[in-house]
């Protein structure tokens, strides 16, 4: 019975991981850009939501606003900073985004202090759902439903809109996009802002579960990498599937072999790259 509940709980975790990773995956797919600052956007989203709620805003307003603000900020960063180095080797992608992540993290400490804070779940969702012996917080249930709806919307965006078509074409072959005559610069910025905004949304959404603290971005980044690699870089469906796999695996390991949870996750990540480098769903 416990296993069943662990799987259910893992689904909740997995949806959050999906949201965290999907932006990283889209950015990589289109821009071939390794974004080590993705965790920093997650961190920033959480703190912005926290700040707004502290100042009396409702969580429902803070959630989209935080995501939007992070997206705008990321778009700006892309336009003035990152686009200069797309053509450079990965080394410099990593260097500039590691630097950016440090700047954001230290900035958060300067503004909000080194001690974290608590962002309570909205009143309406602060209870629990009871299923026999199993207890599940309403807020986490909301996260599952919300993320599922968002995943569907994102699916629609990527599959049925012009932007989606461009992104998909661009992911398959970067030259395509220029050949088709699109303004690649603006599309790059838009996609980067979208990816980072999703990370910010994940941060704001996770804040009532995890609280906020200045180093939450580091852990988020490593989870996002694991999910993206297992799912296949640039793959939307892969991010969803791998998010769920990692969430469920982590939750099950809590019962089976807690000490080895991390070891198993990274072993899985290495195994996937060696055995199937494009991940579960990556395009060949």
């Amino acid at each position, binding site marked *: *019975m*416990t296993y069943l*509940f*662990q799987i259910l*709980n*893992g689904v*909740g*975790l997995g949806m959050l991981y999906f949201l965290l990773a999907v932006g990283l995956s889209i950015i990589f797919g289109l821009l071939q850009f390794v974004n080590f600052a993705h965790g920093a956007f997650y961190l920033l989203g959480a703190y912005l939501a926290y700040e707004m709620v502290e100042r009396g805003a409702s969580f429902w307003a803070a959630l989209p606003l935080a995501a939007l603000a992070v997206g705008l900020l990321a778009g700006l960063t892309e336009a003035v900073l990152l686009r200069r180095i797309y053509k450079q080797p990965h080394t410099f992608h990593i260097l500039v985004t590691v630097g950016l992540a440090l700047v954001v993290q230290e900035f958060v*400490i300067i503004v909000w*202090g*080194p*001690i*974290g*804070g*608590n962002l*309570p*779940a909205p009143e309406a969702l*602060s*209870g*629990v759902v009871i299923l026999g*012996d*199993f*207890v*599940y*917080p309403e*807020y*986490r249930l909301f996260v599952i439903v919300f993320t599922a709806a968002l995943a569907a919307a994102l699916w629609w965006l990527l599959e049925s809109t012009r932007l989606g078509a461009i992104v998909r074409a661009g992911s398959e072959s970067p030259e395509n996009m220029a050949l088709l005559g699109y303004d690649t610069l603006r599309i790059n910025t838009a996609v980067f802002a979208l990816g980072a905004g999703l990370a910010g949304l994940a941060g704001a959404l996770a804040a*009532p*579960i*995890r*609280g906020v*603290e200045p*180093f*939450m971005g580091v*852990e988020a980044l490593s989870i996002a990498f694991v999910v993206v690699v297992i799912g296949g870089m640039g793959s939307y469906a892969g991010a969803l599937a791998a998010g769920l796999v990692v969430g469920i695996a*982590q*939750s*099950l*390991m*809590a*019962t089976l072999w*807690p*000490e080895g*949870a*991390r070891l198993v996750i990274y072993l899985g990540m290495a195994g996937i790259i060696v055995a199937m480098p494009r991940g579960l769903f990556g395009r060949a």
Partner: protein
Amino acid sequence: MLHRRAFLTTTSLAAASLAAPGLLRGARAAETALVVGVPLPISGAFAANGKFAAMGAALAAEEAGAALGRKVVTRDIDTEGKPAPAARKVQEAMGEGTRLFAGGILSSEALVMGKEVAKGGGVFFTTAGADEITGQECNRGTFRWSVPTYGAIAQTVRPLIEQMPQAKRWYTITPQYVFGEGLLTAAKAVFQEKGIEHVGNSYHSLAEKEFSGYLTNAIAAKPDVLLILNFGSQSSDTLRQAVSFGLKKRMTIVLAWASGLEQFEALGPDLCEGVYFGAQYWHGVDAPLNKALVAKLRETRKMSPNYSFAASYLLTKLLIDAATKAGTTEGPAMIKALEGLTYAGLTGEEEIRAADHQVIKNYYLLKGKAKSAMADKDDFVDIVGSGKSFLTPEAAGCKMT
């Protein structure tokens, strides 16, 4: 050494730009003033503790300086929360003549620094949690203020069992490393003695942030009490997630090793309400030295001392007092001055046990109160109980050499 000094003075201007790390730290001041090194995680993940601890140490130095009419300074050393920079920078400080050190928040850095300081003939006073510091890894140069795991469990689990005779089923969540094992072992011993059923334990790694899986395990075991044995932000995460799973209504939650005020501030009163916390220090403790400190701090800085601040204040004060008494900062005389010392501390009368350099002091059981019942913004908890419980030095495994 001599020619190096000479070189430094003659070419100091030219070299200043290149050799700043060596020159910026007042080398001259070190020769006349009494210096206490304060190795703390000032940057990195534990920066919050480091910040307050540095403030506490500075206050102690300031007070002592005024009282003694002598220049007393603290020297902040950023350990980055990691043993390697900690050891390296403490070595450096000793190379420049510093012999007294008060600091070390994390077990791993404190253990290393204790060894380094002892090797160099200095004295290191710490608040870190690892039992080994005054247990298997104890040494002449290291002193520890905080109560080890045995006492923390004895002053939290034991009184709660007595208070709640109907609560027979306990579940534990434990970080898997020496500190967590220490707490768990002590808790198990109490369970066995008191006939408590230990219905399960979840181990987790030091990097864990997601506790829902462990909480699901705990719920399945249907305990009366959830005993959380991790610390710092991990215990905050565990408590936060436990509350969101509605566990507060289903069972009693005990956090055996809380950091006190700074943790309560991060959690907020709603999460803390009704939860039991074990703590080394609370600013509401009724002891003269503590009352004076609280009054002074409220007046000058509009804040209440938290554990990091208070402990660091006291350690620095103890080192300065001992150095004044001994008339030197050199290790052997300092150790002699500190061993067996009984003094009026922040938790009442405290004693430095000579055999293992463990300070014998109170450990507190606190209970979170409702937001409406708080007298001021820092009044998060009531003191439910306190007392001194310690293993003998032999039982703790300390063989001083």
